[in-house]
């Protein structure tokens, strides 16, 4: 079931599949979910630095009134790109990084269902990032906000000029946004389908849905959200592109279009998007808290179903981004109510996490601190979210810094704290090494304090009447002090990032001392070696319990006082891969020769472990997309044709290449 049972075919030499398992080519052609996860992680961290630098420039500019550090035009580009970058090129791909790496390991699979499609997702995401940032060198970055409200996003921010494209066919710089995000959406859509099929079809024997780790569950919910949300924004972006590049009239009022249509479509995607960003972090925390409390997750079923409930209810709250648009009292009342009540499933999670810690034996290494940080900070974001549901007062709050504070508590205090928790928690699994815990704690405290200094005062300055997205503010409004504190906080956060990067760089050079299960953890990925071999598990585990790894160590996860099962006591329960022979084989050496491996246990001991071969075509198909995009912007039929040729040529190669290299 897990070994892809493809018959070796006899393809021509043109379509021979690449075989490199080390070196740059192995990364460009990889279809290994672990390598792809690592690529996602480092690319997202790179964009995190870019987006963070943009935020830092914004904060330095806003440190005082009537600032002239940036021009208004530069400011508008920076706040637009900060939002776009952090959402589409940092938090979403960080989620993908963890999902890619962990999903197959957590369900006891050897890879995802469609390995080449998985590589394709990564390369398309990278292409989208490169395309969007190419605007910096091609006439200016998008300047109409990540929300891209039409008709401003069609006209351009400056009524006098500032467009991109060739003479006679100028268009708003937001064309880079509409095309760039369409490309990014293709990546996420492919991932979503991949993760859904993987979760449903490739679970190890015994891994029923309600035995899946919560992170896997949240991955599944997120994949469904992506599957349904991305087509909506895809259509909207397509329309925006046609309005902007080809003179269509979906959103232009003078031609019978309606700008409100864009807002509905954008937020019908945009609100589920918020849960796409936060649910993976919720999943991570639901793994970390039980491990360091040495207790199972309190109310597993409630946490899973509240995640599903959030996934459903997330579709019914989009218009709370539009309370001031004037949808009328009935719509506003309805969406106000749904907005308040989506707090219920979120509250369930918070209380269940506290219940998990209650009665435990809490240890506080870095991942645990970040996880508790999420619970604490997300609560603040959740509570300010409830106040947005009080519609008449939201008329005051909306489009002020109060909202900026709210969603940074959700996305920085929530999503990012969760991802950093996960980054520290699974680092030993990915590398076999430990992050430096002292530096990690320093990182946590700098982030915790810096984040509250940066975003806490925004609540106040927003309620004191400071609107968001404003490139400057006058003196005498009473906003100076708070803005200065916020800037100090942002600088502190930058120090925290440096501490993390230093820790990452030095820890990567450290000794491999982690072993398979350094945290005494509970889920399947801790059964295999660190780092795991290319095929993940020498023998697919047979799952008997929800916290299978814990169960194998301590015999029972049921109520009562468990005692450690002595090694060798039970044939069923003892699989300690740290002592298995295969775990000693370095991962790279284990991959290329399938004949080397032991037979796959669960499939009856017939077939060798057959892993999917690498391929160049995911990269090639992805590379065609930005080429076509540039063609649209620069009105170049040649570029469009070239992009199309690369895409369809790549797809042809993808189809025609042998499903595996000939066996010897």
């Amino acid at each position, binding site marked *: 079931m897990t070994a892809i049972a493809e018959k070796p075919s006899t393809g021509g030499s043109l379509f021979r599949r690449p075989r490199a398992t080390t070196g740059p080519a192995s990364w460009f052609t990889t279809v290994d979910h672990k390598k792809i996860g690592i690529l996602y992680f480092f690319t997202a961290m790179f964009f995190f630095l870019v987006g963070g630098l943009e935020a830092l420039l914004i904060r330095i500019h806003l440190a005082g009134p009537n600032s002239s550090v940036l021009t*208004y035009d530069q400011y508008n580009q920076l706040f637009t790109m900060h939002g776009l970058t952090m959402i589409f090129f940092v938090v979403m791909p960080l989620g993908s990084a963890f999902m890619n790496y962990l999903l197959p390991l957590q369900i006891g699979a050897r890879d995802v269902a469609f390995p080449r499609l998985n590589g394709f997702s990564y390369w398309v995401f990278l292409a989208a990032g490169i395309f969007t940032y190419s605007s910096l060198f091609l006439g200016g970055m998008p300047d109409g906000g990540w929300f891209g409200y039409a008709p401003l996003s069609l006209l351009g921010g400056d009524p006098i000029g500032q467009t991109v494209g060739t003479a006679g066919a100028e268009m708003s710089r937001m064309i880079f946004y509409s095309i760039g995000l369409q490309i990014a959406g293709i990546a996420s859509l492919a991932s979503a389908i991949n993760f859904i099929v993987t979760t449903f079809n490739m679970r190890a024997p015994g891994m029923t849905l309600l035995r899946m780790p919560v992170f896997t569950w949240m991955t599944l919910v997120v994949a469904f959200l992506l599957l349904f949300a991305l087509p909506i924004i895809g259509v909207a972006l397509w329309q925006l592109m046609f309005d902007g590049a080809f003179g269509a009239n979906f959103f232009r*009022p003078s031609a019978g279009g309606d700008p409100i249509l864009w807002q509905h479509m954008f937020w019908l995607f945009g609100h589920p998007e918020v849960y796409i960003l936060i649910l993976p972090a919720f999943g991570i925390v639901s793994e970390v808290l039980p491990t360091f409390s040495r*207790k199972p997750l309190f109310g597993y079923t409630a946490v899973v179903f509240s995640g599903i409930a959030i996934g459903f209810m997330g579709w019914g709250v989009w218009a709370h981004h539009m309370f001031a648009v004037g949808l009328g009292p009935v719509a506003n009342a309805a969406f106000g109510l749904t907005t308040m009540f989506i707090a219920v499933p979120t509250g369930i999670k918070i209380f269940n996490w506290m219940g998990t810690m209650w009665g435990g034996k809490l240890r506080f290494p870095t991942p645990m601190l970040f996880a508790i940080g999420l619970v604490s900070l997300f*609560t603040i974001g959740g509570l300010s979210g409830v106040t947005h549901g009080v519609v008449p007062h939201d008329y005051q709050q909306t489009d002020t810094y109060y909202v900026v504070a709210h969603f940074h508590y959700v996305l920085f205090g929530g999503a990012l704290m969760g991802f950093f928790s996960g980054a520290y928690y699974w680092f030993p699994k990915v590398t076999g090494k430990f992050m430096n815990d002292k530096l990690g704690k320093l990182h946590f405290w700098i982030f915790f304090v810096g984040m509250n200094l940066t975003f806490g005062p925004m609540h106040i300055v927003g309620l004191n009447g400071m*609107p968001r997205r404003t490139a400057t503010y006058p003196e005498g409004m009473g906003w100076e002090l708070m803005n200065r504190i916020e800037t100090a906080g942002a600088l502190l956060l930058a120090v925290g990032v440096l501490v993390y990067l230093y820790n990452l760089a030095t820890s990567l050079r450290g000794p491999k001392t982690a072993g398979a299960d350094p945290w005494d953890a509970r889920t399947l990925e801790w059964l295999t070696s660190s780092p795991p071999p290319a095929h993940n598990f020498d023998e697919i585990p047979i799952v008997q319990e929800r916290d299978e790894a814990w169960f194998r160590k301590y015999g029972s996860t049921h109520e009562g006082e468990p005692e450690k099962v002595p090694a060798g006591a039970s044939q069923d329960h003892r699989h300690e891969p740290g002592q298995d022979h295969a775990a000693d084989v370095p991962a790279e050496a284990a991959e290329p020769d399938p004949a080397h491996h032991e037979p796959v246990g669960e499939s009856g001991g017939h077939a060798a472990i057959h892993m999917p071969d690498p391929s160049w075509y995911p990269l090639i198909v992805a590379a065609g997309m930005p080429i076509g995009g540039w063609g649209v912007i620069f009105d170049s039929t040649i570029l469009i044709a070239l992009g199309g040729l690369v895409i369809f040529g790549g797809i042809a190669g993808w189809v025609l290449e042998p499903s595996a290299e000939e066996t010897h």
Partner: protein
Amino acid sequence: MRAGRPRRSGLIGWALLAVAMLLLAGCANADLPQDALSPEGPVARQQDQLWDIVYPIAIGVFVFVQLGLLVVMWRFRSRGDDTAIPHQLHGNTKLELLWTIIPALILAIIAVPTTRTIFALADEPDDALQVRVIGKQFWWEFEYTGEEGQGVVTANELHIPTGRPVFLSMEALSPQIPDSVVPGEESDERNPQSLDGVIHSFWVPKLAGKQDVVPGHVRTMYIEADNPGRYEGQCAEFCGIGHAVMRFEVVAHDPGDFEEWLTAQAEPAFDGQSGLAAQGKELFETAGCIACHAINGYETSGGGAAGVRVGPNLTHFASRSIFAGGLFDNSDAEQLAAWLRDPQSVKQGAQMPNLGLSEEQIEALVAYLQSLK
């Protein structure tokens, strides 16, 4: 070592909590010109009353969760010598039901007054003063459309009487500068798309929350001020490069003073200039100003209804105290001169072109503008 860590985190947590409480409690400040928590009229007050309900509840939950976290972290911290495995508790249905139902009940309590106020604010008040509001890039235009003061057009300043609701009908338009600003060559041909405005949002925090102004739609809201005074506001929906400086003021008068103001504004422009101001009057036509700015009663003025005019109506320019999106002081001749010299350098994104005026011309135009009481 293990015992020390939670204590430190506890202390910092407490300190942060105390700071947060203090900051939030001291949040409302009526001295701040745009404080959203200091209502000065019935609309803002109704909105603020809901905040007074939801804010203490939110703080209560905040304290409960944060304190709970600290207590749990302290009480269940692992001691170095304790290797026993804790009780593997999987959940507690009663507890979980409790923390599902209680938050739902609290939210239901908040929902009732919220819904009531939503509908209350949507009603059109009786006997309201009617004003048409046009959001342009990047300033606000106000036209009195009711029986009183019909045809009075002003910019950046909305004058209202106290104690009476003012009903606003709001549109967004962005007329473009004509291809030629040279008088006589003004073309009537306008690209219909050029009239498409962008979305703005009308916000005077002390009088009312926001209402977006959406091109292709007419949006309505009402405001009311209790006392005479100047209430600052600004555009709250990102509308392009000059969004941050799209500021304005609502000026509330006693009803008698308001009538007086409105009567004066309905008069045609002052026409008796002499000397420098008379030169400026002539320049106003020849230098191109008249292509975009209307002056009522000006004999060669092309007129032009509010809305389709590119620039503000200047009939009573000198009676206003701010111009260019509320950035500058009308009475300051130097600020006016700087604006005429190069608009973009003092207000980024301003649509008024640099007409390349000489210093003498600028001086004359300033004198003329300041004569338009």
